[in-house]
């Protein structure tokens, strides 16, 4: 579904993405992880050309994104759902209008767009908040509206740019649940930039570790986190072990028993 070849992006003298190669298959969920500033967000934003890459090739459903005309790019963007870290909802519009916006602008009749929007909101459990403005919703609710907005087009590729990074832990869960459901039951490909190890372990089909603009390790979650070959992978492994040990010890100390 998505093939990235030799992708490079520089900001002045800083090489944000360095000759990156990556592919995501239809129905596959790939999590990109790595330390802050390693080029994850830049990579994902170059896919729908929110950031213009310097060189390389990006193929989405066989279309070369970098050679598209402005008009074709707009059409292609409608086939790619994008969920932002900061939700990026239009402040003056209601949840329903936010979801409808892209549809109406792409020529979908208003009634049909409204129906699709309600359906998308229902999928994320937000149909009851359809008339609410972003300011009237919590962060998690806003993010779920953002997900509904991306889903409304029924995209072939979903790009997630740290969707839970701006949320507190309680709200993270409601977003992760939605993402997990989408990953399970949708056929579209998902490329997720995240720091959520649990999500990556549990949901991702493949983990891609990045450092300094390059992929340093790639593989199944069990491989990457259990037998890492890169220093970054080793750090993630240590982190997982630390969290597990700490959690277990703490739970045991409090008389609780871990489940699963």
């Amino acid at each position, binding site marked *: 579904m998505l093939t990235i070849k030799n992708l490079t992006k520089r900001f002045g003298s800083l090489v944000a993405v360095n000759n990156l190669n990556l592919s995501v298959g239809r129905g596959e969920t790939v999590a990109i992880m790595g330390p802050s500033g390693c080029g994850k967000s830049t990579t994902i934003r170059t896919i729908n050309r929110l950031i213009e890459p310097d060189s390389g090739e990006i193929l989405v459903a066989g279309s070369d994104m970098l050679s598209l005309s402005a008009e074709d*790019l707009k059409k292609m963007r*409608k086939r790619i759902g994008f969920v*932002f870290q900061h939700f990026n909802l239009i402040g003056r519009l209601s949840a329903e209008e936010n979801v409808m*916006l892209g549809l109406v602008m792409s020529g979908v009749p208003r009634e049909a767009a409204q129906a699709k929007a309600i359906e998308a909101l229902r999928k994320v459990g937000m149909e009851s908040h359809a008339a609410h403005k972003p300011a009237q919703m919590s962060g998690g609710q806003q993010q779920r509206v953002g997900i509904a907005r991306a889903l409304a087009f029924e995209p072939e590729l979903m790009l997630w740019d740290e969707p839970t990074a701006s949320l507190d832990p309680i709200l993270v869960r409601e977003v992760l649940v939605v993402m997990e459901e989408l990953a399970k039951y949708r056929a579209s490909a998902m490329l997720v930039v995240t720091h959520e190890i649990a999500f990556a372990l549990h949901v991702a089909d493949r983990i891609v570790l990045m450092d300094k603009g390059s992929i340093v390790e790639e593989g199944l979650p069990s491989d990457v986190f259990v037998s890492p070959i890169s220093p970054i992978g080793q750090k993630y492994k240590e982190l997982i072990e630390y969290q597990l040990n700490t959690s277990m010890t703490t739970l045991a100390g409090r008389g609780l028993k871990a489940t699963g």
Partner: protein
Amino acid sequence: MHFWKKNKENRFDVIRKALQRMLADTFNRDILVLILISIMIGSLVASSVSLAANAYFSKTLANLVGDYGEYDLLIQAREEMKDDTAQQVQKIIDDVFPGARLKEGPTITGKTNFFIALPDQYKVKKTYEDLGKTFGSIPGGAGVGVLTEPRLTIRGVPEGAKNKLMENIEQIAGVKFAFHDGSSVGVVLQSLDKTAAVSDQIKNLMNQYQVIEISFPVGSEPGNPIRLGEAIASDMTNQLKADYAKNVSIDGKNDDMTYMVSTMMELKRFLLAYASTVTLTEDAGVKLAKGDIVALQGISSSIPAAGSAVAKENVLVEITAVQANGILDGMITQGDASQIVNNQAYKVEQNTFSQYAGTVTARNPRQLLSSALTETSKFASQVPGFAQDAQNMSSIAVNALDNYSGSMNAVNQLLTNLQSAGNTIQNVTGGLTAIDTRSIENQLDNSSHAMGGLISTLQVLKLINPDVGSTIDNLSNTQNGLKNIKSGLSAMDNVASQARQAKSTIDTIVANGNSTVAALKAFDAAAAKNNLADVNTKLGMLQQVNVPLITAQLQYMAAAAPNLKDEDISHSVKLLDKFIAGQAIPGERIQILTTSNISTDAVQPIVVSNVGHNNVTLYSTSLGVIEPNARGQLYQVLSEVKAVLAGMTAIVITIFVLILDHTAIMTYMRRKRLEKKVKARGWRGLVFRLTAVFRNSERQYGMCIGAILLTAMFILAKGGIPYLPWIGVPVLGGFLGLIVSGYAEKISPVPTEELIAGEALGLSFDEIMREIVIPEGRPGLMQKLNWRKVKFK
């Protein structure tokens, strides 16, 4: 040819496509429509504001001055006094201008206007020049203005040149008369159709003359510009043979302030003439400069010592100049010259005695004047006695002259008598002179010897003959007789000799006497007597002089001599300097009215010669300018006000339109620019930062929109700002756009996240602008226009 044709077709194709893009339903077209509507509304508003103001002022003006030529005089008085004013004005025109018509006009800003239409017979020069006098008794602080038409007004004419100009103007055909109209010259014409011709002739007349202005930089101003101007004008006449040259300094002659300043300058000179002059001979090793202060003991009981504080009893001297020989001139700023007993001076630093400076010598002109007047008074008291004595002497001299003629005659007679006596002596002794007494004496001697020999012989004979004794006696007697005759002859010879000497003496006396008499006869005794008579008369008059009065006045003058201390004088002079310096009226420039054929280059040496330095600037200006009549001027002012109001309104609207309608667009442009921004380093970074103001897209956009809006509104609303040329309008508009663009993001902070979301959703530029950017911006015309296009309202 084919190539060019093809190229041409391509160019047209490009233009056609560009136009199509622009006219298609795009956001660019929205901006175009916005600009057009903004310009239309802005121009309309600006025009409306200016027209409304113009209409208001025009109506006010019409109420104020009536129809053309209807009224001749305008009197403005305080509103609360208008009844009394009306009554008084009516009384005046009944008395002075019978038949004149009075109309009460509108009251504006607390002043009521009264219009007066004069009968023709009163429309004469005297009437207009006496307006102040005629209406001087009106209560309420009224002012009188002239409305008579047709009339020309010439302004900028130096006061001193007015009379000459008016004389010449009144010779022009079509001119009824010219009059002093405040600071201008008013020219009343015989008819309106003469205006152009008279105006041309007045211009020609003024072109024959020029005003040469002589300006002085600060610090080089002349002491008395009025006198200097007179001197320069005089030299121009004498040296350049100028047909006409007169000091007409605008603020000079006939200007009360200048007279006052001139008087003050003279007062300053007067005071300085009475100020004590102090000279200081510096001690070795001391170096004083102009402005330094030295102190002397004065009337202080303590002898000055370095380090002690200066007291008010000390005498302070400010150094005013350093002579070429090193001696310093000074002026007493505290105390008085009479208080200088100890002449040792010390430098003053921070109000404390410092090092020993030298010795001072003071000269007090006031004291000298007082002494001189006292001595003169004493002298005057002696005058009557002196006159009396002189008159007595004169009388004696007259009497002497009265006897002068008699004396002269007596002397003449005496000389004549002497001459006669001399002649008589000469006649008497003339015979004696002719006798040869020497020969006779020799013969008598011989005879005597012979007789002696005979007598000796007879003596012998007597011995022989005693009878010869008688003969001997006879012979002896005869011999003695001969001796006597010889003695007589010798005496006679002496007499003749003495007679000749006497004659010679008499001749000398007579000759000298005649010479003296001739000299004395040259003396005009009569004239001398007349002169003495005059002297007597004058001495008599001198005796009539009221000497006690003169003496009293001299004593009064002595008493009235400035009883000022030197410190009073120095303080007064400084105060005068401050006042004179504060009066920028004279002193900075001198104006000389002269013929236009005199060049400033020719005048320059004369000015330099009179001023004493060449730190002056000369330039030639016209004698004056003809200004439109009051009504025309008012309408001109109104049109300027209208233009300014239109221009100011256009500026305000441009700013509002930029802020309300374009800042959101500028913000979006800025965001897009920053997405691509690559931070340059080193010299490139410096160049980028320096040129960013004009290179950044949102700033270019702001400048273009500002320039277009303001220029179009200025043109359509006929706006105008004083001193702002037309080319400055788009520049100003661009500048406004530049300023607004700098604050665009603060004015319309469009969220970046929403823009990115729009892009990610596949929205076009137009859709992003219409659905996200403009609705997030400030509520303005753009939002109103955009509202029709917004899908989600």
